[in-house]
């Protein structure tokens, strides 16, 4: 008895220590970049490092968002992320519903589902060269639309699988009842299934927003100027061979994290499902 109590206490201590260490390791880097964004250059470069910004300033935010076009980058990121999300969500919801509900001959439903997932396995670098040349040919390089189209290729499989998993969780009887009452199949989808899947839709949308907001490689190749460049590209542009503008990139990098933090709190209940393409239900 005493022995098991002792082991229970030691287990609790171990858990508390693990939580404390994990929290420090998780939060310190985030705190560090945030703190540095509010320091004067001299304090960023100080040795030993200044652990807390004793002399806070908004200088770097001013430099990034007023003097340099980071506001434009942010706006581009936002427009591209929203457009991608809308396209992926509309197409993905319909396809996800079809794969969750309809009957297809033979093994087709399984084959199509798997094929859609497998397109997501393609490393982005593989598709980017032909897309670059195609957009070049269509005179669409350095436009937001080119980025939106490329991002859709990566968000659509995700949206399809997520929505498929949410629709599979809905009881089919409600749609049947609506159809018995004279609604069409499409009407049952639109007026019964879709409203019931609203939490799933919201979660899928937020995940698409996050994926597009964070993406770097495709935007790096498809965009050239501030007309279409996104926030990550703007940040990378201030890390040059000769100089790294620490204050500016800290300010822009921390700013880029803020909407993501808010989103993470909003979708926390759906996080597991979203991260596993609907395979694991948290």
């Amino acid at each position, binding site marked *: 008895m005493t022995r098991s109590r002792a082991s229970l206490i030691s287990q609790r201590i171990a858990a508390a220590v693990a939580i404390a260490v994990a929290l420090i*390791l998780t939060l310190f880097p985030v705190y*560090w970049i945030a703190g540095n964004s509010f320091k004067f250059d001299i304090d960023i470069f100080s040795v030993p490092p200044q652990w807390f910004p004793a002399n806070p300033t908004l200088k770097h935010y001013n430099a990034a968002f007023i003097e340099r076009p980071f506001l434009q980058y942010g706006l581009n990121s936002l427009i591209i992320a929203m457009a991608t999300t809308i396209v992926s969500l509309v197409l993905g919801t319909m396809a996800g519903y*079809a794969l969750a509900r*309809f009957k297809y001959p033979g093994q087709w439903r399984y084959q199509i589902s798997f094929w859609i997932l497998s397109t997501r396995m393609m490393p982005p670098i593989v598709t980017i060269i032909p897309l670059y040349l195609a957009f070049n040919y269509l005179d669409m390089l350095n436009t937001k639309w080119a980025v939106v189209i490329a991002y859709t290729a990566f968000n659509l499989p995700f949206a399809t699988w997520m929505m498929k998993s949410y629709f599979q969780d809905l009881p089919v009887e409600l749609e049947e009842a609506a159809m018995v009452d004279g609604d069409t199949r499409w009407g049952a989808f639109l007026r019964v299934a879709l409203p019931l899947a609203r939490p799933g839709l919201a979660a899928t949308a937020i995940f698409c927003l996050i994926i597009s907001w964070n993406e*770097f490689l495709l935007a790096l190749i498809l965009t050239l100027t501030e007309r279409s460049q996104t926030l990550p590209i703007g940040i990378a542009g201030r890390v040059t061979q000769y100089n790294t503008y620490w204050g500016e990139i800290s300010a822009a990098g921390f700013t*880029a994290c803020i909407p993501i933090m808010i989103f993470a709190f909003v979708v926390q209940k759906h996080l597991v499902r979203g991260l596993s393409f609907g395979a*694991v239900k*948290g």
Partner: protein
Amino acid sequence: MTAELPIARTAQAVSGPALERWSERHLRVLMLMPAMLVLLALTIFPSIYMFAAATTRISPNPDVPWEFAGADNFLRLLTDDQFHIALWNTLVFTFFAVSIEFLLGLGLALLLDRYIRRLNFLKTILMLPMMMPPIAVAITWKLIYEPQFGVLNEIMFQLGLPLQAWAGDVDLAMFSIIVADVWQWTPFVFLLMLAGLSSLPEEPYEAAAIDGASAWRQFWDLTLPFLKPVIAIALLLRMMDALRLFDLVFILTGGGPADRTKTLSLYIYQVAYRFADPSYAAAISLFVLFATVAFSTWFIKRMRLAT
């Protein structure tokens, strides 16, 4: 699993106008088609194009027509040291990063499973790194690794250990990249494992406790087999991501020093845009594509994930 609905047995579908009746009858195709067409255009077209490009010599001068090159570009893969280095680096990175993330994530989940369910807000805080833009993660670690005024060297100094160049050091660069990746993605494995643990049935454990099975035996014979599907998904998604690593190395090391952190994605980028050799880049890309898809498919079938 899913009930199938009769399609044409509704009142309006029978009595509605012809177009509506037609679209109602073909709804299962019409709802699926747009997504499939978009995906076909965005993945199959590039794949075919890549194959065409890889078997030709493309001149930088757009007026010179493409010249058929057969398997030349693929044969180059066999003798290109840079490619072998990039392949090796990618495999080393994937192996170590995913293993460490898996062990840490699973260990933490087992340790905290009982406590963290009541501390939901804590879970959300621990999730932050993987939601952050990879570029923000990269500059954060660049700042921490900075040899002159970085915080890591300050800690080394306080501990009386030798200062290091970290991402700039030939021997530590890959290690530095792995640490940054582990920082960002361990929460992902942790979260998935917690979800798996919370869905474990209780009866087998009660039976095992009555039989006097040790905690270790319970873990080995019950927990691990029950977790297997979740573990397989976590590993698959992490490996797919790790094999395409680009952002972190692009910012932290640029592939250096001495090519120690050059990954396949970075090498393709360099070949295509710095060396302006799209044909060869296409050949490497096809290799990567084939290897990734073959591996993922094998893994999914092996783990019986697709159901």
